[in-house]
């Protein structure tokens, strides 16, 4: 049962960033005329260039003066060491670019969409190779790290990359003592690199030697690319430290963390907070009191972890308090002026299971997270190996619980295809919940032990859809749920190894058949029906509901801010403005079937 809470309360790591405004090009160092600020770009996934709308907010690279040149690389004015960078980018078909950290270490951006072969260092999300002519002809390239999987979206869609980079370290004489490390590269939500060390610079480096600082540089010499939402955090600011730390340790029952004049068993001075001071499994009280040295006035976030009951006070104000499991991340922020502040941390446990874990971190924007506890005071999470369902030789389907937009769905089937595209489907709604590409299914939660939440999750590049049955009687609003007695699930049959779902809806027998599209880059969904005798049903097909709808070309729209495409053959769509401010795209359908593709 404990494990249940442990897994439900995974810490969600948020981070504060600064944003580089894209109202103009002032943030960049002598950009070539290929770089412009625009309002929006769009493209079909087959286009090699963008359609551009004038305005602000998007940074665009376009060929303007004949051939692309090295001087078309875009150098930021931001000179950085350690950095966490997150940005959105859009590639037209076949595009090639890259992000150079410190102008020296490249993470590759490439249109790797649809690539079926093994990923290489030169694919999107790869850490590009090092180069040394001295290694001899044909042998110059070395290192370079392929992404764990292909997490690249279709051309013409906005993609997100997050890079957590640790700059190399140098001694007083300028000699490098530690290599640069890509701590994380997350492409479209998929962790593709973690803690990869690079021994030197990429061949295309702006500089001839490594240094503590350097500017972000975007490769602009290979073709068009667009960026928006450029956010980053660097870590040069000082942060808090502990001083004059004292502890008192009591044994007994202490409700509400009050010692109530009980004599302490132990007390004294120390330098680090640690649960190791505790001698018993339960019924103790450990209190730390000390000085918090605040270097500069700012907002400081206090993140605490404990198993049992705890309370964190700063200057007498209670920040974090309550009963938690050590994997819970309890956070509270407080504005502190420069100077000394009083910190008090109290910890007790009145049950004997669980470990005597105690941890306290402080985060200031612009400074690394610091631990005020001893490393051994906060234990590692449980080591549970992945249980992966693979779809390699033939299509695979697996039912489970699954979360969709925060709600646990209970009658879900996940379908995996050897072509590398997969989807989750709600059998209670006749609706696609999500589509993804790459590895198939993570069933660890369901098949390891037996606690909550019993769900399984996509292992690849995932696009969440609305989870609603797409057919609506013409002119009627789309209901949130079809479980109103007019709709009945009839199971599925297996055709070419894949399920075809069967329903009865308003006396019509429906079949819902998803097959990978011809290029294996998305799903083609065909809904067909046999009308009851003498009737000629008229339906609308809801293609999607979204804050904004981008019409790319006839029969092709992109939804959710260019997150995915819907493509169909046939009549023009209508866009309805819903009461909730969203737009709903429909096409009228007649006859016996309708098809459309989801591409992402």
């Amino acid at each position: 049962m404990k494990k249940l809470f442990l897994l439900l309360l995974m810490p969600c790591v948020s981070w504060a960033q600064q944003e580089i405004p894209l109202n103009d090009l002032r943030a960049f160092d002598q950009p070539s005329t290929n770089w412009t600020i625009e309002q929006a770009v769009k493209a079909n996934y087959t286009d090699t260039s963008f359609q551009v709308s004038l305005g602000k907010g998007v940074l665009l690279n376009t060929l303007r003066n004949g051939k692309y040149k090295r001087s078309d690389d875009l150098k930021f004015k931001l000179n950085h060491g350690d950095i966490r960078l997150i940005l959105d980018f859009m590639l037209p078909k076949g595009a090639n670019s890259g992000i150079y950290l410190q102008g020296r270490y490249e993470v590759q951006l490439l249109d790797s969409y649809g690539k079926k072969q093994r990923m290489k260092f030169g694919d999107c999300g790869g850490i590009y190779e090092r180069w040394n002519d001295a290694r001899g002809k044909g042998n110059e390239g070395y290192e370079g790290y392929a992404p764990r999987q292909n997490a690249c979206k279709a051309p013409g869609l906005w993609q997100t990359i997050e890079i957590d980079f640790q700059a190399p370290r140098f001694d007083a004489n300028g000699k490098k003592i530690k290599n640069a490390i890509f701590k994380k590269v997350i492409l479209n939500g998929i962790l593709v690199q973690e803690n990869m060390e690079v021994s030197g610079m990429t061949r295309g480096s702006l500089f001839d030697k490594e240094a503590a600082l350097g500017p972000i540089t975007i490769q602009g010499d290979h073709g068009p690319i667009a960026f928006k939402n450029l956010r980053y955090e660097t870590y040069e600011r000082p942060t808090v430290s502990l001083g004059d730390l004292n502890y008192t340790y009591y044994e007994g029952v202490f409700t509400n963390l009050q010692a109530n004049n009980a004599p302490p068993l132990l007390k004294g001075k120390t330098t680090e907070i640690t649960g190791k001071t505790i001698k018993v499994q339960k019924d103790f009280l450990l209190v730390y009191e000390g000085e918090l040295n605040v270097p500069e006035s700012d907002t400081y976030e206090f993140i605490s972890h404990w198993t049992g009951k705890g309370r964190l006070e700063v200057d007498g104000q209670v920040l974090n308090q309550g009963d938690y499991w050590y994997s819970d991340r309890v956070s509270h922020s407080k504005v502190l002026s420069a100077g000394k502040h009083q910190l008090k941390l109290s910890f007790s446990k009145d049950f004997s299971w669980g470990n005597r874990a105690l941890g306290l971190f402080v985060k200031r924007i612009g400074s690394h997270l610091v631990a005020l506890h001893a490393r051994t005071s906060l234990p590692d999470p449980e080591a549970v190996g992945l249980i992966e369902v693979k779809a390699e030789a033939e299509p695979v389907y697996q039912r489970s619980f699954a979360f969709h937009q925060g709600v646990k769905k209970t009658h879900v089937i996940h379908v995996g295809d050897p072509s590398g595209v997969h989807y989750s489907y709600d059998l209670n709604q006749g609706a696609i919940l999500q589509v993804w590409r790459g590895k198939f299914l993570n069933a660890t939660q369901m098949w390891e032990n037996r606690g909550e939440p019993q769900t399984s999750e996509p292992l690849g590049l995932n696009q969440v859809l609305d989870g609603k049955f797409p057919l609506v009687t013409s002119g009627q609003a789309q209901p949130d749920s079809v479980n109103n007695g007019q709709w009945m699930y009839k199971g599925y049959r297996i055709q070419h190894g894949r399920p075809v779902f069967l329903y009865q809806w308003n006396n019509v027998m429906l079949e819902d058949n998803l097959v990978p599209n011809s290029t294996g880059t998305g799903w083609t969904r065909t809904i067909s029906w046999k009308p009851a005798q003498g009737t000629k049903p008229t339906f609308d097909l809801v293609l999607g509901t979204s804050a904004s709808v981008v019409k790319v070309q006839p029969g092709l729209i992109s939804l959710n801010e260019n997150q995915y495409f819907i493509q169909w053959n046939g009549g023009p769509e209508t866009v309805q403005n819903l009461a909730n401010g969203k737009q709903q795209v429909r096409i009228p359908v007649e006859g016996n079937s309708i098809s459309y593709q989801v591409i992402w």
Partner: protein
Amino acid sequence: MKHTVSILFIFISSLAWAQNPGAKTEKDFYEIKTLPIPQDIYLEIGGIATMPDGRLGVSTRRGEIWIIDNPYQKESHQTYYRRFASGMHEILGLAYKDGAFYCSQRGELTKVTDTDRDGVADRYEPIYQFQLSGNYHEYTYGPVFDKNGDMWVTLNLAWVGFGEGKFSKWRGWLVKISPDGKLEPFAAGLRSPAGYSINQEGDIFYGENQGDWVGSGRVTHLAKGDFAGNPGGLKWAKEPNSPFKLTLDEIPDNGSPMFEAAKKVKNLKLPAVWFPHAIMGISTSDILQDTTGGKFSPFPGQYFVADQGQSKVMRMGLEKVNGVYQGFCINYREGFQSGILRERFGLDGSMFVGMTSRGWGSTGKDDFGLQRLVWNGLTPFEINMIEARPDGFEISFTQAVDVNSVKKAASYALRSYIYKYHHQYGSPIVDVKDLAIKGIVVSADKKKVRVVLDQIRQYFIHEFKLTGVKNEAGELLLHETAYYTLNQIPAGDKVLLNASNSPIVEKVALEKKMSKVDPAKTTTLISDNEAMALLKKHTCVACHAREEKLIGPSFTDISKRKYSDKQILALVYKPNPKNWPDFATEMAPMSHVPAKDVLKIASWINGLTQKKANDALINRD
């Protein structure tokens, strides 16, 4: 594997030692055959269906149906696995009828067929869609077909610190579903109804696990409108098609035994047979009546009840008194490889036993397994049947008894007790009374012994320990302990007590009555052998071993907690499952064990770590 073998060896051999050297053991009569499983298959068995063509269908918790060729291992030992169906949701029940498989997924009763006959299912058809809240504990079991072709399904309660059925419809119920998908709610009060079956007379029995409102494991006969005791699913008794009306408020929660509550709550159904916790299993699962006409066992018509946690099969004999089922339970065969969830008879009258222990733990250390229980035709000296009489019981045996041994009072130890009925998890045994034998009558064929007791109590569990009863060859019983649940006391003639039928009391030095022990002062250190004897006597070894983690923590791990002897005593009497969050099965209060024995055991446990430290010092170089 070596690991497993050694544990089983210790476990079995320790039991064997308790009897005469050379005495026969279970395996001399009831053989266990193991079916090999390919190493890449996770055969966590949730359902078994015998196929009429000689193959075997097996469903798994990972959602597959496998068809196994050569399951009887006739000419060769090898079996062959074909994956018939896949991708379903934790299939905990499987049936085969007219060329189709029927199975329960968590949220659906499903018919699975192979319409193009290529050996792989291509049609998955819902017979019924069950509501689910998504709680992990909402298991669905079945179906079991009845003669009319209707399907019976049981629906496990959710677990949120207690059993709860209100999140989704008919949780905690036994329901009947017609082939065209009409659901009829039949009986309620179920908590964890993993096993159930229909007997030859068409009556349904289900096995329940100890838990909230359930003092101990038990088997209950369910008739329409019965409420079997756990109120978690009573929300649905308000539905118009519920066969009865009852609310939680109407149920007494004062710790009185269930039979007291049944006097007030009309629909409350008492168990046919209690399976005392930790002795007769810790988690009863499947039930099967021996309908093989003498092929499966020497006990045709009796029932075989499996236990998940103790990896064993027990035997249950039922009679009907005043129209009410009641009877006894006794051990039959232990030592299976994993936790037993399913039993099904094969075509040859042997029993397939399907196992999984993931998330529960079991004495059989494998994660899953498939074995077959085969009787070799030899009849051991066993209790055949126990029947109630107006003044006691009549015990029949499989072989003629040694009259001298059965006439001795010292050959028997008898007592009766019952459990509390309350919302707490489990119960200690309460209201324990030792019983004295007033008369013993042996039948002419020496196969029946009627015992007249000083007191029999309606509704109570009557414990029989026939430690001195021998057959004419001088052999002791294969299983000496049985538990009879006396729901009804039959009418009829009582035995006229006289000198000829009074028990023989031999002049042996009676054990000195111990003066009341002061628990605080007892620090007797006992030897390992003495400790093992006590641990076995009080059934501690059913769940604990010295070094190995079984159902509960090892004694060595317990000793590492540095509890005082007194603390151990308190915890044995009132366990705190939260102390051991890694163990799925909660310990039952063992307050019937005398304090002096618990303290002896406690000091022995606490000696284990010290002993280890000493050993470490000795072996330091």
